[in-house]
């Protein structure tokens, strides 16, 4: 998707450090030479176009609650159905098909470890598929707010 210069500038400037003040969009507008209305309209449009998933805080997993990366090996012809079942389980926030015997990879979150284990046990029973449970031991770099390489994009 092609974005105009102002949209790119919004993204380049505010993947982090969104102002915490009474009129944050006005503060952003002043920095970028736009009006407050323009900033709000552009952000709404970018959300509607699925360029942004949200304006907001990204919580630190380890502090925000419990989470875990899990994977199952679904029979290829049943992948969509298994993926739907996974999405129905509470707390699933990422779920991707990947090219591997373990072909469905998802992140499950919960308020605490105990609830997380219960949710995973329940899902494992429902799916009747062996599940890899891969909690994080150590994060070396966890931040998807990397600079967008506009030149490289199609």
């Amino acid at each position, binding site marked *: 998707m092609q974005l105009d210069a102002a949209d790119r500038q919004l993204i380049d400037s505010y993947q982090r450090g969104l102002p915490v003040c009474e009129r944050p969009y006005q503060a952003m507008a002043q920095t970028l030479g736009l009006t407050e209305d323009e900033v709000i309209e552009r952000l709404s449009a970018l959300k509607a176009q699925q360029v942004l998933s949200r304006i907001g*805080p990204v919580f630190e997993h380890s502090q925000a609650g419990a989470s875990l990366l899990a994977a199952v090996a679904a029979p290829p012809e049943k992948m969509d159905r298994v993926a739907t079942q996974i999405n129905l389980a509470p707390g699933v*926030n990422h779920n991707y098909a990947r090219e591997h015997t373990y072909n469905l990879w998802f992140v499950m979150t919960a308020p605490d470890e105990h609830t997380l284990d219960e949710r995973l046990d329940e899902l494992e029973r429902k799916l009747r598929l062996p599940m890899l449970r891969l909690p994080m031991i150590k994060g070396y*770099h966890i931040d998807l707010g990397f600079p967008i390489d506009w030149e490289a994009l199609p």
Partner: protein
Amino acid sequence: MNMPLRQAGTTPGPNLFKTNPVSPWGLLRLRQQLEQGLPLTPRPYQTLAEQTGLTESQVMEAIEQWQEQGLIKRLGLVVKHRTLGYNANAMVVWNVPDEYVAELGARMAKVPFITLCYQRPRQLPDWPYNLFCMIHGVSRDRVRAQLKGLIADFGLADIPHSVLFSTKAYRQRGGRYVSHG
């Protein structure tokens, strides 16, 4: 529930409760609302205040304090890279000798095209890999070239690895630790 801002009287945050007591339920509701994102109203913190029963200044103080404490990692625009044309997403997993994993993880973390990097446990015999890194790239060819360069630069030819390209996103959204759904 791991709530960094606890009820006044137990272990209050350093600044938040000096003046007015803040409702712990209000703070929980604020966490729930924030997991959905900041409202696109001219005064979003006031909107959040109305939704949570807190005051606008309590909302702003809580958010600032959560940022200082690291509960909020960043506050800003959350991009859906796939929409922008990052069409190739590879999870590259490595079976690294345990004594070497911390050093290699720290080095990989500094590589610009590696967007996530972490250590997870092996689950033998099915899953021998203990170091994960993610590459968000514009095409598979480009990702493969980046990976080839990485293996050459870091001398990883002897480290078994596997590349798991994603083929479909069934769900991609922020974590909802305290809100429902």
